């Protein structure tokens, strides 16, 4: 291992020689210095070095091409069975499966072992099961990458499913572009968990599959947001095992994005333009999206972006072309997004669970305008146990007219209940013939009534006019107080 570092350092020294005359403070000088400070320096990497070395005799000749790393808590046995089944269906069998049980108790461990025992013997021989009892989501990943024997490593969650050519396409691409991180297209589909008569939950595909992740990797986009579900990726093992790019164990979410990008900064990436796996979006079951709080996601996002912002990053020509083109340049995109965003507004739904309204019991969705009309659907969590009231907030800014607002409550039983303003709706706007005018910030409409358990969705429809003119003000004269009218007039004249 030490030799690897020496080889790398020799190369770096040679490069410095080649760049002789360029001071250390230049971009190139600093890039080399950054590599020097990064490669194999991470204390987390040092922690996993013994694990990496433990498997060294099993790597190289005779080792599988791919290690499929699946972390599991043993809580979704049906899903894990299905993940392994889709691996049985691979046209290319040159892989091993490394199941990493994370914080599993005796019962969960037994359940995982039973699932392994249920596999055909040729599949069972491919599976290794190890456990880790410490750390967060990143610990099983670091341990798995350290213990992997394949020259490439792919992460499959214990609810991911793959098409028959998933390994085959990765293998082909690795042969053609050795050493690069690989990225294949991923189809996304909404799924639900349903309870079967035996009491066990089973997955049920619920929506048309969509190709939002069936596109090439974009370096500029990826610096802002992760568009690559892990089931479409395969990482060259050397990046972790020899260069020391490890998962950041301080991250509680989005660790895959951070790891992907830091690996790609060193290895580059090759796109496989084939749809080889499916990312299941759980609509009523637990996933990392539901387990972690929004604020936690945002905090981790900021932290990762900050890391990228402080790095010298090598951009391939394709990314530079993207940045320089009129269509995809940052300024061009910004203008396009502004235009697109103007068609949306974000609205919220609150429930009064008997202790008043709180952000904890709220949800936010984006609604799209279509000639002032909007329709927004809020999926309700499965554990919703009823409420004493419901409140709809049409955005945060005031200065808008809301018309024909209608709230449809759809219960699991199929029963529907409709609430309009006439059904005891109260609000903080001004009522007039056309609808409700909200002058001040944080507009809301509330229905203090019993909302039953078993609520599946809440759909709100109506029309919003947030582009008020002086003409509109004439209609409102005499309906709303003079002070509010004056405020509106000032806004329309551009006064503070």
């Amino acid at each position, binding site marked *: 291992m030490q030799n690897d570092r020496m080889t790398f350092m020799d190369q770096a020294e040679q490069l410095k020689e080649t760049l002789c005359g360029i001071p250390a403070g230049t971009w190139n000088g600093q890039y080399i210095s950054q590599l020097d400070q990064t490669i194999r320096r991470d204390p987390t990497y040092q922690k996993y070095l013994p694990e990496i070395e433990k498997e060294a005799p099993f790597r190289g000749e005779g080792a599988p091409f791919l290690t499929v790393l699946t972390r599991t808590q043993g809580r979704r046995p049906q899903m894990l069975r299905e993940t392994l089944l889709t691996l049985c269906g691979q046209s290319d069998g040159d892989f091993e499966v490394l199941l990493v049980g994370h914080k599993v108790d005796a019962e969960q461990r037994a359940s995982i072992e039973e699932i392994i025992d*249920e596999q055909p013997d040729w599949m069972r021989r491919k599976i290794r099961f190890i456990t880790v009892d410490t750390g967060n989501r990143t610990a099983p990943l670091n341990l798995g990458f350290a213990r992997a024997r394949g020259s490439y490593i792919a992460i499959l969650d214990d609810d991911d499913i793959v098409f028959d050519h998933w390994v085959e396409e990765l293998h082909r691409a690795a042969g053609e572009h050795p050493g690069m991180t690989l990225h294949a297209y991923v189809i996304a589909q909404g799924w639900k968990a349903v309870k079967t008569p035996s009491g066990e939950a*089973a997955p049920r595909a619920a929506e048309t599959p969509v190709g939002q992740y069936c596109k090439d990797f974009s370096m500029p986009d990826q610096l802002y947001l992760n568009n690559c579900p892990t089931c479409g990726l395969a990482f060259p093992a050397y990046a972790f095992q020899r260069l020391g790019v490890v998962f950041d164990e301080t991250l509680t979410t989005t660790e895959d994005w951070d790891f992907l990008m830091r690996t790609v900064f060193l290895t580059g990436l090759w796109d496989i333009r084939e749809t080889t796996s499916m990312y299941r979006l759980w609509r009523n079951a637990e996933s990392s999206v539901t387990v972690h709080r929004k604020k936690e996601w945002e905090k981790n996002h900021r932290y990762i972006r900050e890391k990228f912002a402080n790095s010298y990053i090598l951009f391939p020509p394709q990314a530079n072309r993207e940045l320089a083109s009129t269509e995809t340049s940052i300024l061009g995109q910004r203008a396009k997004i502004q235009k697109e965003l103007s068609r949306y507004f974000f609205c919220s739904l609150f429930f009064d669970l008997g202790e008043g309204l709180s952000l904890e019991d709220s949800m936010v969705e984006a609604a799209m305008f279509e000639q002032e009309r909007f329709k927004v659907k809020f999926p309700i969590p499965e554990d919703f146990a009823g409420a004493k009231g419901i409140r709809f907030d049409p955005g945060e800014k005031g200065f808008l007219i809301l018309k024909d607002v209608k709230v449809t409550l759809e219960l699991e039983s199929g029963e529907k209940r409709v609430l309009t303003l006439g059904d005891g709706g109260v609000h903080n706007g001004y009522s007039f013939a056309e609808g409700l005018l909200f002058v001040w910030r944080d507009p809301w409409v509330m229905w203090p009534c019993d909302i039953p358990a078993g609520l599946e969705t809440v759909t709100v429809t109506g029309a919003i006019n947030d582009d008020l003119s002086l003409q509109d003000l004439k209609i409102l004269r005499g309906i709303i107080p003079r002070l509010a009218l004056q405020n509106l007039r000032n806004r329309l004249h551009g006064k503070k």
Partner: protein
Amino acid sequence: MGVSIQVQSVIYNNDKKDLIKAISCAANAARVERGAQCAVSRYSCRYGDASETPVFTPEEVEEIRRQFADTLDFEYTFFGFNSGSARGENLLGLDSDADYLVIMNPDVLMQGRFFIEMLQPFAQADVGIVEARQTPVEHPKEYNIQTMETEWATGACFMIHSALFRQLKGFDSDTFFMYCDDVDLSWRVRLAGYKIIYQPLAPVFHAKRLSAKGAWMPSPLEMRDSAKAAMLMAHKWSNPEWLARLLDIYQNSGVPEYQEGARQFLQLQAEGKLPAPIDPEHRVARFLEGLYTEHRFAL
């Protein structure tokens, strides 16, 4: 004394490696069932070969028999003609002495608990067919999430009482070659008073792929044969209005495969080779704009 199960598939120029993998998964599922509950006294696996030349040599058949002898009896028949799936499955299943038949595509792989989960719904006497769930692409047709009842079972993989299969004379192979034979059999099962249960706890791997837009990618042959089969269904299940619409759609589609499907249907009609229509009161048959039951999503 437990029940007996026959797993059967019609093969057509399939890759030997894939077939052996599928047999090994069936044998494994038998092993798992025996270890867990041992409700099945005998498993057999019967493959019918509709290829031009045999896929397996006698030596290879012997080797497969030997390899899986602990769990199932393997039998291989070379038909010597292209039977299509409907006739081939009948040849394999109508003379079977097993209690249940598992009829499946040869490229389908069973999960370890397959037999355990598939047998469960048969505890109800009025269940005629239990259908497995395909993965990674689940079929979009609807099923009742309380009762798991569904209106038809796909031929990719289902289990049926063999007595019922015999009672219904199996698939209507005089009418259907490959497509819609499963819908037709399912509807006749329901017409006979039996239920079809979808078993989401029994996933089977079926090597289907989706395009980058999430759509099926049917071959030209599939387009032609499924168009013809759709018209045969409309005729057989007494829906002349829908048949007329289909003919109009296919003939004016501008798609050569659909036009050929329509031409072949009209030829059968002209030759008097269409089956006698059944279910005139539409007790089970439903034609919902090209679908045979509601779908949860478009694919």
